[in-house]
């Protein structure tokens, strides 16, 4: 039988960052743990050490102002139900509120869903469309990473081994929509997700769940009507084929769902 991982559960962020600085190569940060528990159950990972962030109360907050500030340990369900988020960032409440089931949303966190970089999660595309940034801390300092640059591929991020996401900052938009197209009844993950946001004259359209990272093409959104932009996105994206749809099927759905998202954005 393999050795049980060591369990580290610091109660302050400083302590957690010091542990990561010292043992970043072997210590795996753990937030809500939905993703890591599934990987552990299937024996896909065998970490030497798990670094739980659950006892760091300072990471759980949700605050508003010019920007929405979601603590890394805020749970999906908290974001979904927060009156502050529903009022000022309704599309964010929606994107977190359509993830999986109430059970998973009670456990999964804001920082976790970004650090996992699972291509079939809902929130990343919406956060990209809104121009959100992740605040990453290490013992050496702090930096802000646009969500667009944070997720670099399937389950890959630009985080360094000594860094933790501590907060996500979401600017306001004039209007934003999140559309989730499902093809499977049993699992509630998107085949194609489209997040769109309008701020002044700028419109951002991001397609999620179709490739290793959220797909954003600013140059395709500058002119043309909704149907034309939908066709351009379908042409520009090389979709994955998986149990939720073939690549060819996804291309057709992308064209339709991008058009619908832009039409909804205009209402």
């Amino acid at each position, binding site marked *: 039988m393999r050795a*049980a*991982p*060591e*369990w580290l*559960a610091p109660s302050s962020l400083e302590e957690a960052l010091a542990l990561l600085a010292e043992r970043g190569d072997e210590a795996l940060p*753990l937030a809500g*743990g*939905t993703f*890591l*528990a*599934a990987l*552990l*159950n*299937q024996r896909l990972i065998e*970490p030497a050490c*798990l670094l*739980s962030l*659950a006892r760091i109360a300072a990471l759980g907050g949700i605050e508003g102002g010019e920007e929405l500030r979601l603590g890394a340990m805020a749970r999906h*369900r908290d974001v979904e139900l927060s009156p502050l988020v529903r009022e000022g960032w309704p599309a964010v409440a929606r994107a977190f509120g359509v993830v*999986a*089931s*109430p*059970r*998973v949303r*009670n*456990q999964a966190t804001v920082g976790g869903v970004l650090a996992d970089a699972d291509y079939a999660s809902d929130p990343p595309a919406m956060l990209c469309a809104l121009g959100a940034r992740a605040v990453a801390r290490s013992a050496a300092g702090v930096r802000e990473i646009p969500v667009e640059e944070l997720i670099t591929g399937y389950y890959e991020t630009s985080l360094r081994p000594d860094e933790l996401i501590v907060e996500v900052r979401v600017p306001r938009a004039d209007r934003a929509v999140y559309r989730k197209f499902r093809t499977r009844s*049993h*699992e*509630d993950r998107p085949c194609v997700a489209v997040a769109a946001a309008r701020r002044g004259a700028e419109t951002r359209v991001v397609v999620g769940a179709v490739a290793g990272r959220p797909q954003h093409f600013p140059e395709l959104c500058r002119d043309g009507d909704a149907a034309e932009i939908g066709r351009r996105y379908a042409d520009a994206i090389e979709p994955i084929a998986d149990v939720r749809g073939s690549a060819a099927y996804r291309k057709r759905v992308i064209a339709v769902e991008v058009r619908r998202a832009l039409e909804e954005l205009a209402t």
Partner: protein
Amino acid sequence: MRVRFALNGEPVELDVRADETLLTVLRRDAGILSARESCGIGVCGACTVLVDGRPTSACLLLAPLADGAEVATAEGLGPDHPVVRAFAEAHAFQCGFCTPGMIVAATALLAESPSPSDAQIRHALAGNLCRCGSYVKILEAVRRAAA
């Protein structure tokens, strides 16, 4: 490592591995058999328990994360609990495998919204799968328990 939590109101202390789930240790060490493993990836709801009042997939919660929590399972409700009675009266099951998870999820819903709409019930139980397809009766049972 040692993990301490309240299980259906009684303090328990269990010896666990850091990579074991709450479901594994509840079934192996705490005599809880109402929470069942079916999918093992948080999709089916057969292992639903309440952690600090919130429905949670015990198969996705690493056991050390339950430390200090209040954990509640169907065993803690007993045969006279209104939700349990409503499920029996409405015959809201066929094989019964999913039933404890359904009952636990319904209990949490009713604690939050004592008179839920059908849409709220469906939303709260979305993600609790019944392969016998008893959904119509399950909906009826939750309505009955709410009344």
